[in-house]
């Protein structure tokens, strides 16, 4: 019987994989320096604005009654949400042994680390007297007082630090073998740096067994930590008992939104990395398609949670909640609210649902819309409630100051800068995991009796995820 073999994709061998994935680390063109200068300028804007705020006081941030939380806390929640892209998604995909995860995990885990670094800057900026930040550190101060652990701010501090420690560890562990490859392929000062970071890794069987075990344990630990972090962020709001912040689904609503925006951020990062590092062979349309399907599921889930949240508020018809509700649906904040619905649901729905539309450029567009929509969602959770407290004579308005806007928007530059520098320092696709994926894929395809190396599986080469 005639048998048509499946389409074969070119599969690189180990040497080519090393060359392709380490290439961006060792080659630096003029475009890189231009981009670096732009990002440094944007990041500089954050620190200049912050300096003015420190010098002239928190009044520079335009904070006033009744809305003392504005862009800072909005952007804080936004970045903490983005941080769910990496570690959580990567851990889930590892636990379920999704083979197509392999080229994605490093990009994702780096997003988590840098989004957390960026996000955790905001509570410090928001403190005003940032130099007193260390009061949060659990130790007895000069009056022998310990921090008050009953404050949700302390919960945030502990949860974010746990997540950051876990995420950095989870990012670093799979990087060790890649650092060893970079050590063996580099010269001069780079070799010295990579030698330290590789910790003396040689790739022995004993090392691989233990590393894989450690990564799988870390994946199991990090999932509940990630869920707890955004739940605790939602409780920052819920504990204040303000209108529309008291819903029982607030925790899961935040977690769903976080994963939703996280996947969108990951897709944007992957599109850019693929284009600028010329990694088309490694980040293939199937990886975007699979993530886009996850994004679609999260879009539906987000819509469901939003609908439930607003339906229950409307049906409950409680006097303090209705002004907040109507300010979003048809009042002052309605344009932002409906823009959020368009960005998070109306635009992504057809793009992500219809197979023909799930192309890389359109997925990129949908992801950008989702990030805009999710930032608006965070804003709409915070500001309408604060401007409509329980007593109507306390109602007020909120408009961000220039300092506040500069710091909040500039952190996008800070995040991209950190990510950009990381991409020059570490391969953005885990080399050994990709190679292992080729081995596993070849074995699963049944074309080899024995696992072998990439590039040596000449007949019926298969890519991870296929």
């Amino acid at each position, binding site marked *: 019987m005639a048998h048509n073999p499946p389409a074969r994709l070119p599969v690189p061998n180990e040497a080519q994989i090393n060359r392709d994935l380490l290439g961006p680390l060792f080659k630096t063109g003029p475009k890189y320096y231009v981009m670096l200068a732009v990002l440094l300028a944007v990041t500089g804007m954050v620190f200049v604005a912050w300096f003015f705020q420190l010098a002239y006081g928190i009044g520079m941030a335009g904070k006033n009654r009744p809305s003392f939380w504005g862009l800072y806390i909005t952007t804080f929640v936004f970045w903490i949400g983005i941080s769910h892209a990496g570690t959580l998604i990567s851990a889930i995909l590892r636990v379920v042994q999704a083979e197509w995860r392999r080229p994605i995990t490093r990009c994702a885990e780096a997003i988590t680390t840098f989004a957390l670094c960026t996000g955790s800057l905001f509570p410090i900026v928001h403190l005003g007297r940032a130099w007193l930040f260390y009061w949060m550190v659990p130790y007895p101060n000069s009056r022998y007082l*310990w921090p008050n652990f009953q404050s949700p701010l302390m919960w945030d501090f*502990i949860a974010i630090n746990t997540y950051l420690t876990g995420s950095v560890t989870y990012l670093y*562990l799979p990087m060790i073998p890649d650092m060893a490859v970079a050590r063996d392929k580099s010269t001069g000062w780079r070799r010295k740096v990579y030698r330290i970071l590789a910790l003396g890794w*040689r790739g022995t069987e004993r090392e691989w067994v233990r590393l894989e075990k450690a990564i799988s344990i870390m994946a199991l630990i990090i999932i509940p930590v990630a869920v707890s972090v955004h739940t605790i962020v939602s409780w920052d709001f819920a504990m204040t008992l303000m209108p529309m912040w008291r819903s029982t689904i607030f925790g899961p609503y935040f977690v769903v939104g976080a994963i939703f925006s996280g996947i969108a951020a990951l897709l944007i990062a992957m599109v850019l990395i693929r284009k600028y590092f010329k990694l088309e062979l490694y980040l293939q349309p199937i990886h975007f398609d699979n993530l886009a399907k996850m994004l679609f599921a999260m879009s539906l889930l987000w819509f469901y949670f939003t609908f439930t949240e607003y339906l229950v508020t409307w049906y409950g018809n409680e006097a303090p909640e209705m002004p907040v509700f109507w300010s979003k649906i048809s009042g002052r904040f309605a344009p932002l609210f409906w823009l959020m619905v368009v960005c998070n649901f109306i635009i992504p729905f057809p793009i992500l649902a219809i197979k023909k539309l799930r192309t890389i450029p359109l997925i990129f567009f949908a992801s950008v819309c989702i990030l805009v929509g999710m930032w608006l969602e965070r804003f709409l959770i915070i500001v309408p409630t604060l401007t409509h407290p329980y007593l109507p004579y306390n109602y007020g308005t909120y408009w961000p100051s220039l300092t506040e806007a500069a710091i909040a928007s500039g952190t996008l530059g800070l995040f991209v800068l950190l990510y950009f520098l990381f991409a020059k320092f570490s391969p953005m696709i885990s080399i050994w995991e990709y190679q*292992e994926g080729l081995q596993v894929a070849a074995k699963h395809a049944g074309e080899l009796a024995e696992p072998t190396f990439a590039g040596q599986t000449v007949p019926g080469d298969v890519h991870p995820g296929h």
Partner: protein
Amino acid sequence: MSQTCLVKFAQPNDARMAIRRLIQAGIGPESMEVMTSQPIHGEPFIPDMKPTKLRTWAICGAALGLVGGLSLATITALNYPLVKGGMPIVAPWTVGLITYETTMLGAVLATLVGLLVELRLPNFKNLPYDPSVVDGGVVLAVACAEDARGSVETAVGAAGASKVNWV
């Protein structure tokens, strides 16, 4: 005097065969190490490798974190009791939250420390290593006495070694 031989194989099975032959020739498995650029699935290269205790490390770390977090949140509250209109001085929700996070933190840190301890990393000594392994293949490092050199070369040669290097 002991010498180390670095042998390169193109395929994992060749390395497995060489190890079997070396064991038959009287070289102990503890004198051998296999290096690859990626984890190789299937039959282990070296038989009777010690199992990892990383799970125990993680559990012990979690237990330490649990005790630490519980103590921190409880003792600090009792140390300076703040009366909050009928609410307990040691709030179970708060203690639970802090304890949960420190438990996880303990597990994370203990896993990392456990890995480094079990692998004796960082280790910057000049241990036997062939940097060409990152471009594929399997490198077998065999430590043996000088008089066993001939039998090692015969065993690895018969298994299809592509490169033999004494260091």
